[in-house]
């Protein structure tokens, strides 16, 4: 965690994004001016990031001590044994990138997770690759990589403990937690 302490952004972020819908569903703590075509978000860095605490409905009861869910950053899902980003995942990550750029003081840890099938070790690696793929995509969208760290939990923190296709699909994911 030490390295993330290094950089603090003091500039106001001015972001243009075409992803209106995303911002509409999860309004960041910013004053918004815009029109139907584009949106300009001005974020006051003095403001607290929009950390809403642990969403108990979506997180297993295991220790999440220094990780808090960030409401504006949505989780993305993956196909079985894959760490490549689906089109859906890319759409969500674009929204997340916009949110991160609108909240420039925010740092996040990206957790990579897998479904319960397969070897623990391979899934740890796969989870790491998933988190890494999400991070790299966000960086390619202009988010400073120093604000993002990754950790893999493999198959250890299932959202849904059931053993069926639906639960597995839910559990194959990368999610975003605030760094305390």
């Amino acid at each position: 965690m030490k390295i993330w302490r290094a950089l603090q952004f003091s500039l106001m972020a001015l972001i243009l994004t075409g992803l209106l819908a995303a911002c509409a569903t999860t309004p960041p703590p910013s004053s918004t001016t815009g029109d139907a075509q584009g949106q300009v978000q001005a974020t006051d860095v003095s403001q607290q990031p929009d950390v809403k605490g642990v969403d108990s409905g979506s997180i297993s009861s295991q220790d999440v001590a220094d990780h808090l869910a960030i409401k504006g950053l949505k989780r993305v899902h993956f196909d079985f044994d894959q760490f490549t980003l689906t089109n859906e995942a890319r759409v969500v990550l674009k929204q997340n990138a916009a949110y991160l750029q609108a909240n420039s003081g925010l740092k996040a840890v990206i957790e990579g997770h897998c479904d319960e099938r397969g070897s623990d070790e391979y899934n740890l690696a796969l989870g790491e690759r998933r988190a890494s793929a999400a991070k790299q995509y966000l960086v390619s969208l202009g988010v400073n990589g120093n604000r993002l760290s990754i950790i893999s939990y493999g198959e250890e923190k299932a959202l849904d403990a059931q053993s069926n296709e639906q639960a597995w699909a839910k559990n194959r994911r990368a999610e975003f937690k605030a760094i305390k």
Partner: protein
Amino acid sequence: MRIFWLLTLILWLGPWAATAATEIEISAPGEQTMPLALTSFLAKDGPEVAEIAGEINEVLAADLDLTGLFRFVDPAAFLSDAGRIGLYSTQVDFTQWRLLGSEVLIKGAYTLQGDQLIVEARLFDVINRRLLTGRRYVGRTKDVRRMAHTFADQILKTLTGETGPFNQRIAYISKSSGNKELWLMDVDGHQPIRLTDHRSIVLNPDFSPRGKELVFTSYRANNPDLERTEIYTGQEAKVSSQQGLNVAGRYAPIGRELAITLTKDGNPEIYLVGFNGSIHKRLTNNWAIDIDPSWSPDSGHIVFVSNRLGNPHLFIVNVYTGETRRLTTRGKYNVTPAWSPKGDRIAFTRQQGGSFDIYTIKVDGSDERRLTFGPGNQEHPRWSPDGRFLVYSSDAGGKKGVYVMRTDGTGARRLTSPESDSNHPAWSGRW
């Protein structure tokens, strides 16, 4: 170390034992089973305690049955000699045992004085009317199972030339306490004890081949770090805490080194590290996932999992030259390799048709054999040090449990209790 709570006195049997051992030769289960009469141990100089005789009998029966080498003569058919203490061949009525069709006979006696327990155990060759091996164990009442396991090991040594693995331990991961912690139990599942109290996530144990020490991965510092614990002192130490994964640590059978998967360079790669985590060598260099190493017994090669050709398959790398070849060609998802201590085969898990089962394959990639056929998933095979058994995880009974079977897939049985939610076993070396 308290090895010597158990004092083993070897009875000198003269030249008989050696010659007898070569005359009776059994090696592989299923080939030809030997008819065995296992009698109840009898009270000698102390009080009769049914529990002691019962535990000795239970342990010997379970251990010897697991070997698949014996056929038990029905105790209901036993004649008068079963009721007599016979510690010397001259005291045994071999004719009776011959009549029942038995070829080998186990007899024994125990003496309880206060809390001190003396167990005298004998294995007789019924055909040649002589003692094959005898042991006298001195300990306390609580050691009774240990004594019986040790005698089972001795029986295997006498009959096959190689000692058994029954007086060893199995480490595993269990969620019994609410969190995944490292546990230790006897090889028959008895006496489970928790070794860690990290209240985080503990994963993937491996035994040191030299001592009572384990490595495992723990998340207690919010990163999957490799840690080490000494079993009897409970002392723990960090081995490797590079940023990212420090997982699947495996002690080299020879030399002071561990194989481990690290992601410090952004991608899962296999490294050789010292016990202080210092990096000796990077073994893989590939964009793909490389993980899950297992050493050949001579420490010259490592089998590992890589998805460099698309799906996870097994590869073997020469530790010295880095030369790498593919091992598995069938299936689309082959993981958790474990190199047999004899060196000839590699056990692994394959996903097929939505579930996982255990296979073995020769080191040259030939003679692949499927060992399990459901129900549920069978994963994480690890060999016993004598190469006779595989211990593994299965969810066949609903919750995950630790199971053991022979290396031909027969004799499978659950070791952990049904409610314990346990997996990822590793068999210790000589204890």
